[in-house]
């Protein structure tokens, strides 16, 4: 039977598609360093439901970024399995797009060209559709007026908005965010917390969000997973049941954040005594 070639339209392309569920089972990963192998991840298991917003919190070097890269397919685990919708992840793919800490925007393209980059790699779309889709996402992040700006002319916050639009444009099922707001000032960050919650609600993505900012994690996540370093493990799990949209400055949120911070601190002390 021959498969009919089907062109999807811009409206179809913009449809909300069901998000993925992730199943990470017993994943370990070693790195070689000057002082011998370092166990970055030690038998980490974790499930993420469809459309869930999960935050990974921990000190620097606890392996949370490594886990994110493994989910993205950019790195391979030494052992264990990672499944997206029941299928093993064998390499990077546009089902799971990454938003990096430093903006990985391409300076040789303007804002519009950057958002268009992933769309151009999607077959079965006309160029007009691609442009319409790119325009839609630039509007979603509030940057329609900057379509033709060069990347280095943008502020840090704007760059991350473009990164977000670029990651959203190919309509992935999973969004992986690696400390995307760490380098921004507080005011810009607070705006983006509001935006990301709105976009998450509108576009229905599964989001795995890495951060070392506990308050940020409590503000955004349905669940917050606490990572312990050396070796990287999931130490504790917190569920944040607060109505959305959440305000980072609310008292209820602060209570949750305090609970997580306490756990994080006792982890740090435990490690300090272990080191002695």
């Amino acid at each position, binding site marked *: 039977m021959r498969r009919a070639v089907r062109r999807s339209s811009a409206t179809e392309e913009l449809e909300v598609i069901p998000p993925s569920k992730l199943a990470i089972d017993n994943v370990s990963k070693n790195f070689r360093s000057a002082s011998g192998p370092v166990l970055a991840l030690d038998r980490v298991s974790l499930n993420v439901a469809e459309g869930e917003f999960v935050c990974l919190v921990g000190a620097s070097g606890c392996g949370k970024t490594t886990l994110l890269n493994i989910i*993205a397919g*950019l790195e391979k685990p030494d052992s264990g399995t990672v499944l997206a919708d029941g299928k093993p992840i064998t390499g*990077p793919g546009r089902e799971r797009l990454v938003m990096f800490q430093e903006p*990985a925007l*391409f*300076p040789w393209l303007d804002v519009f060209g950057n958002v268009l*980059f992933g769309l151009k790699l999607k077959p079965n779309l006309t160029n007009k559709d691609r442009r319409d889709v790119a325009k839609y996402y630039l509007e979603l992040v509030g940057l329609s007026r900057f379509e033709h700006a060069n*990347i*280095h002319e943008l502020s840090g916050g704007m760059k991350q908005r473009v990164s977000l639009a670029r990651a959203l444009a190919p309509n992935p099922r999973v969004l992986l965010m690696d400390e995307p707001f760490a380098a921004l000032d507080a005011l810009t960050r607070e705006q983006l917390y509001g935006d990301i919650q709105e976009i998450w609600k509108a576009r229905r993505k599964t989001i795995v969000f890495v951060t070392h900012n506990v308050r940020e994690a409590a503000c955004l996540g349905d669940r917050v997973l606490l990572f312990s370093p050396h070796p990287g493990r999931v130490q504790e799990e917190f569920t944040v049941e607060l109505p959305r949209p959440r305000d980072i400055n609310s008292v209820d949120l602060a209570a949750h954040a305090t609970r997580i911070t306490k756990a994080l601190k006792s982890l740090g002390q435990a490690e300090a005594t272990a080191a002695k």
Partner: protein
Amino acid sequence: MKRFLLAAAFFAVLVLLWEAVYRAKIWSPVLLPSPRQVVTYLEGAAADGTLFKATVITMRRLLVGYLIGLVMGLPLGLLTARWKLFHDTIGTLALGLQTLPSVCWVPLALLWFGQTEAAMLFVVVMGTLWSVVIATETGVRNVPPIYRRAALTMGSKRLHMWFKVILPAALPFIVSGMKQGWAFAWRSLMAAEVIGIMIVIVVIGLLADKIFFSPIEKFLHRRWGTSQA
């Protein structure tokens, strides 16, 4: 305007010095003609068309040699950046030969090809090729890994990755290599032609830099945001 006047004054002083040395009669006028004699000669050559003809021939040699150097150098640079084997062989060769002043090729080229166009071309290609190879390799190696990773997640692979990500990211390096290659090609040709139109060669070389490379570099700095000013 002030900048221009200062520069003009600088060159005026340079010509005056030249005239002064001529008048001091340290060397015979055959070895060091006065500025006036040089201008008269150039006027004569320009009037009877020999200057124009010689310039066209020189430019043709230069452009053809430069293009051959580019067409060979770019792919070689990409190969050396991509595969260790090419890096260890062609890369090392390029590094060695680039340090060799292109003048050194002149006697060899004359011996191998005689006083032919091929000898001239050979010298120009040798001047261009290696700096283009090295600049391309350096450029590709300096592409921030995050660009590649971001492109990978969006589904870019192989040729698409090379043409849409790595080459554009390496372009500022490649253009500075092309510029250096141009300067080397120019110098090697000067060495190969060794005739008394040094000034013409210097002026044309400067013009090419201003007309051709300056706009490209300005554009790159604007887009990439690497301008220091």
